[in-house]
């Protein structure tokens, strides 16, 4: 600590004044880091080793909560499965579709700005409202989507009433809100120098080749950004799942996301200790997955340094 203080002593008066001002400016955030980040993380960790019902003080129980997670909670398996299923399906499909949409929106056409605006509109609908709208669209017997499917004489699934179809339903619903993600890709596409694509065209590259050899590599950092954000978001999906399946994940725990399970333990059973242990687990998993993605990014994210070299 003393070493850290040394520069302070050697500073000029002006610099010291600037430093003081700097601390004042970031003071709120410093408090926030301590009170709303550091303290809660430590407390969550501590609570995960206790039994705590809020009304009574916490009781230290060692690893019991973690034992329960791994051996004694029948809802763990389905909730982990659901969250992984949802993430593995919604993230790649969402990425690919939003990328395709961005390519479409990147076309030169009159009034393209209007289309871009319209695509973004669904992202404005609050998740609760959007989910309720989709429960109407996906209604098993006479909802719009099933009426459409049946008009081709095809069998229509019961969607949110069928444990095998409720998660695909959730994923489809999530795709409705990819407008924002699409616009991020669009911004990335517009940053790609036209000269590069034209040069490739002159070299005789076709559309697919241009996409594969130029557009995608130059877009890879945007893809990485969207990928990481979506994975973190998908592991924590809550609102849509709760609106559809309540805190028990109807039907048949098929919409019981991990986050819903945490919420249920925290606020239905008031098992704050156990819910904390679940939170710690989710935290670790999200961190590991994020790190793995960043690791893998070395292999597939096009680094601009190489371009300049």
């Amino acid at each position: 600590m003393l070493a850290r203080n040394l520069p302070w002593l050697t500073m000029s008066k002006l610099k010291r004044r600037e430093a003081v001002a700097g601390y004042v400016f970031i003071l709120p955030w410093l408090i926030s880091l301590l009170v709303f980040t550091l303290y809660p993380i430590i407390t969550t960790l501590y609570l995960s080793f206790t039994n705590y019902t809020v009304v009574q003080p916490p009781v230290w129980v060692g690893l019991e909560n973690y034992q329960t997670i791994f051996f004694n909670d029948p809802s763990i398996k389905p909730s982990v499965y659901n969250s992984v299923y949802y993430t593995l399906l919604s993230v790649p499909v969402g990425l690919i579709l939003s990328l395709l949409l961005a390519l479409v929106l990147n076309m030169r056409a009159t009034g393209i700005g209007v289309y871009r605006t319209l695509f973004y509109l669904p992202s404005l609908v609050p998740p609760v409202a959007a989910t309720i709208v989709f429960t109407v669209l996906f209604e098993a017997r006479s909802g719009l989507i099933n009426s459409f499917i049946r008009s081709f004489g095809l069998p229509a699934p019961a969607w949110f009433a069928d444990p095998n179809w409720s998660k695909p339903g959730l994923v489809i619903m999530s795709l409705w809100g990819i407008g924002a993600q699409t616009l991020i890709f669009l911004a990335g596409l517009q940053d790609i120098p036209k000269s590069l694509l034209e040069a490739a065209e002159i070299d005789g590259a076709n559309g697919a080749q241009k996409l594969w050899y130029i557009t995608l590599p130059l877009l890879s950092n945007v893809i990485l950004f969207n990928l990481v954000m979506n994975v973190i978001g998908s592991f924590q999906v809550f609102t849509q799942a709760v609106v559809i399946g309540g805190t028990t994940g109807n039907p048949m725990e098929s919409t019981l996301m991990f986050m819903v399970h945490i919420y249920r333990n925290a606020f239905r059973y008031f098992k704050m200790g156990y819910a904390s242990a679940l939170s710690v687990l989710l935290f670790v998993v999200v961190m590991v997955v994020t790190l793995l993605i960043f690791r893998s990014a070395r292999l597939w994210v096009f680094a601009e340094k190489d371009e300049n070299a």
Partner: protein
Amino acid sequence: MQINEVPYSDNSPSLSKQIASVARHLILIGVTLLFLLPFYWMIISALKPNEMVFSDPVQWFPNPIRWENFAEAFNYPGFPFLRFLWNSTFYSTLVTVGTVISCAAVGYGFASLRFPGRNFLFTLTVANLMIPGVVTFIPIFLLFKSLGMLGSYTPLILPSFFGNAFFIFMMRQFFLTMPSELADAARVDGANEFVIFWRVMLPLVQPALIVMAVFTFLWTWHDFFGPLVYLNDQSSYPLSLGLFAFRNRRTTEWGLLMAGATLTTLPLMVLFFFAQRYFIEGIKVTGLKV
């Protein structure tokens, strides 16, 4: 690599170009319609009598139009829409004010002022972006509980006045792109850092402030988890939670429910209409996500 000569015409649009243009528009229109369908369905269902929401054959236009759904949603005692609207507006506005003030100040501190530990703290801030909210919400809930603040908006609004990692990051990037000459000139004139920030720098980053305000407002309006955890009394609910409670109570009244959903979305549409530029530009410039 062999170089092919590509036929290149820059003149008046040929027939094939016109066809391509029409095809492009067809694709765009088709995809747009698909995207707007749930939207459309929400609004027309809100105008249908209950029994027509799931009619067979599918009814694309409400006939007769039932405006009463909105009137009923407004006046229904279990769903005091005006109250919820006020709650949402109040909640979102205060969070927006808090976020804009705090993040602008903190972002400026990180970008333009030098102080020991700055890089370390900024690294922490970026790391903070990656921390899932789930790992902090229980202790924060308990903290506000011990302060006797559960059942009020304080726990939902107060933290915004201390900044959030995402917008601090964004504001810092913005301030970094600002020329430092103006600030230096003011400094030479003897202005203190707060005056420089307030008078000189803030006006320069006004677009960023608007982007931040617009998105904070939108996200707060969307927020469901926070109010669900902190609010206990229905009359204090914001729209998103009120709509959820309404759904739980009146499962069979689909027309009314859709009217509620439409009303919950409507204020954001109005906001979007006026601040459209900032939404679209904001996303593009900062890589924001909803």
